[in-house]
């Protein structure tokens, strides 16, 4: 029988009480661990967001974004103006095109469809051209709902609603709506948010400023159309070669094609025109100043300068508050666990005063008895931690998302992009909005974090048990033994 064995034995002296204590401890420890896991997950996400969206400004024609709105287009000449603004590191022009699958387009008109009022699109900036590519995204409920007006106009008078109809003009198949593919001409190897393209196979386009029939295709679009590096496809009856495949990380972002800027301008027959400019600033601190300077340089009647990560900033700040809340909750739960241990051990010491006196009478050192009580507390904490870790691994995901949704509901009202643009229009920010980001935080209980949390719990438990353990030193055997 060692001190440890005795402590374990003592921990189970009153089994019902031990079970109750362990249950209460498990709740506190489980909560602490879940909060720590949530804190770590959110912290990681914040870091990731800060790294991915540092210093990018987007310039759109005043009054327009993506394919929506009106106003005068931006021009290549303006990129020089933008580049001259202090702290601007680079300016990349983009030209957005909407690619319509040829068969779908031919149901309404024959030949190259230009300036077709695209599904969900308004008048203005966007240019639609045909392609032989099939979109990798099914229209689905959202697509069909979003595009009811567009497809209605396309199918009016088709007469295909009646059974047995043999309309000669029609192909016989109902003109099912297919989503457009986003094609963007880019002046450098970056996406429309200014992030470097992640090319997973093949190569880039080389010189992005000259026209070329090379293109980059998103992963899902490539899979859908059986494209590899070297394959060919057509845009506006012109044959393009796939130079490389890229992964944008989102389904929407991967249903896209990139060409060189000059090529896209040629396809749209609008040389020198830009849909947007992606401006990179040298550091986070200078972003606000550069934004103002850029707006002044370009003229507010001509261009809207928006901070690409504005909605991300909201997301980051709301994630930051989640992080702080979870940290406070972690500390509170940890403190509660410590307090529970403290109170239980004080109770046990009082209950066993006589026994402690006897042990001292027969020669036990104060530290032997103190150690015995600390070990007993640790046995209880160990059991509580096992149960608590199980609770945490089940609960942390739920707790994290509960924390986040309660926080992002306030953020959601302010997270709309500038210029009234809704969630990710074609060619828009692949990050649809803060809520999408927030839900992508997965609080998986990693063993390392759990281990660190359990270590913290044990640290607090030792402190909590030390106070009552020190109380045992003050028990004088003569006083407790005289009671007989």
């Amino acid at each position: 029988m060692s001190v440890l064995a005795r402590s374990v034995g003592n921990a189970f002296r009153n089994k019902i009480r031990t079970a109750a204590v362990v249950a209460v401890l498990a709740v506190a420890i489980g909560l602490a661990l879940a909060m720590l896991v949530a804190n770590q997950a959110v912290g990681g996400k914040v870091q990731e967001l800060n790294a991915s969206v540092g210093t990018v400004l987007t310039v759109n024609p005043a009054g327009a974004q993506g394919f929506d709105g009106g106003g005068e287009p931006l021009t290549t000449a303006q990129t020089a103006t933008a580049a001259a603004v202090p702290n601007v590191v680079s300016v990349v022009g983009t030209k957005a095109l909407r690619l319509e699958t040829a068969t779908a387009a031919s149901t309404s008109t024959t030949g190259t469809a230009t300036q077709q009022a695209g599904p969900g699109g308004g008048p203005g900036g966007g240019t639609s051209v045909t392609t032989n590519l099939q979109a990798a995204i099914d229209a689905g409920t959202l697509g069909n709902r979003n595009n009811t007006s567009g497809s209605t106009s396309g199918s009016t008078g088709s007469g295909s609603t009646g059974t047995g109809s043999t309309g000669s003009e029609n192909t016989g198949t109902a003109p099912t709506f297919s989503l457009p593919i986003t094609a963007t001409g880019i002046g450098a190897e970056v996406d429309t948010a200014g992030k470097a393209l992640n090319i997973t196979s093949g190569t880039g386009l080389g010189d992005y400023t000259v026209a070329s029939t090379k293109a980059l295709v998103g992963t899902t679009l490539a899979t859908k159309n059986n494209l590899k590096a070297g394959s060919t496809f057509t845009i506006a009856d012109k044959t393009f070669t796939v130079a490389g495949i890229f992964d944008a990380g989102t389904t929407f972002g991967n249903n896209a094609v990139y060409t060189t800027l000059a090529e896209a301008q040629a396809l749209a027959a609008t040389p020198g025109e830009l849909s947007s400019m992606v401006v990179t600033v040298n550091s986070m601190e200078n972003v606000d100043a550069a934004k103002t300077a850029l707006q002044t340089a370009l003229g507010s009647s001509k261009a809207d300068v928006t901070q690409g990560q504005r909605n991300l900033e909201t997301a980051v700040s709301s994630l930051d508050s989640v992080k702080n809340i979870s940290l406070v909750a972690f500390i509170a739960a940890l403190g509660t666990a410590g307090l529970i241990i403290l109170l239980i051990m004080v109770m046990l010491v009082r209950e066993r005063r006589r026994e402690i006196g006897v042990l001292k009478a027969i020669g036990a050192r104060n530290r032997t008895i103190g150690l015995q009580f600390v070990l007993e507390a640790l046995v209880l904490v160990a059991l509580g931690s096992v149960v608590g870790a199980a609770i945490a691994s089940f609960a942390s995901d739920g707790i994290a998302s509960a924390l986040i949704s309660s926080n992002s509901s306030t953020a959601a009202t302010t997270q709309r992009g500038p210029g009234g643009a809704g969630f990710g229009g074609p060619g828009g920010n692949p990050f649809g909005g803060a809520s999408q980001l927030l839900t992508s935080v997965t609080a998986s209980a990693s063993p390392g974090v759990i281990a660190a949390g359990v270590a913290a719990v044990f640290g607090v438990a030792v402190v909590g048990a030390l106070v009552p353990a020190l109380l045992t030193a003050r028990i004088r055997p003569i006083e407790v033994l005289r009671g007989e």
Partner: protein
Amino acid sequence: MIEVKDLVRQFKSGDRTIKPVNGVSFELEKGTLASIVGKSGSGKSTLLSLLGALDKPTSGDVVVDGVSLAGLPAGKLTEYRRRDIGFVFQQFNLIPNLSAVDNVMLPMEFAGMRKAARLERARSLLEQVQLDPEKQSRRINKLSGGEQQRVAIARALANEPKLILADEPTGNLDEQTGEHIIELLSSLSRDHNTTILVVTHDRSLAQKTERRFRLQQGKLSEETVRPRVAARA
């Protein structure tokens, strides 16, 4: 050898001071079985706790084999209790959730003895106090009073103490069991050559000890000294 020199212990209760031990002196040779009788509240337990370093005297000293307790710090007093003293209490005061063997092994563990040696010695001691072997692994609260007191005596012997202090060890036992316990203490004092001081208010039990003291009004007086041989007869 135990020397007790002019020991005084006074308590203040309210504005009254009482001196249950008021100038007690005596000596005990090694291996003596001695008894103290006295009325309830006469200060017998107080005297024993002074001898066992559970309490500090107001004045006077206890010297054990030439070492004075008066000059020892707390840590040394704990060591003195662990190594030189064995306590036997009226209420047995065993640890209820431990087995008989585990209880006997406790003082040896505190003294740093190795586990195998502890177990062997505990079993042999329990044999000497005549506890049935099958009861050695039983939890204390599953044993009778007499059996518990045997275990307590074995525990007192664990570290081969110089002095065993037994405070009314038969007080909670029936007459016959009490007699067995006194006989056991008597034979142990002979076999181990251990000094044993027993407090009792049972005169017939006191008769069986070699030296008999009476505590009265804080003073100790000795009754007739019987030769050792006679005591064993």
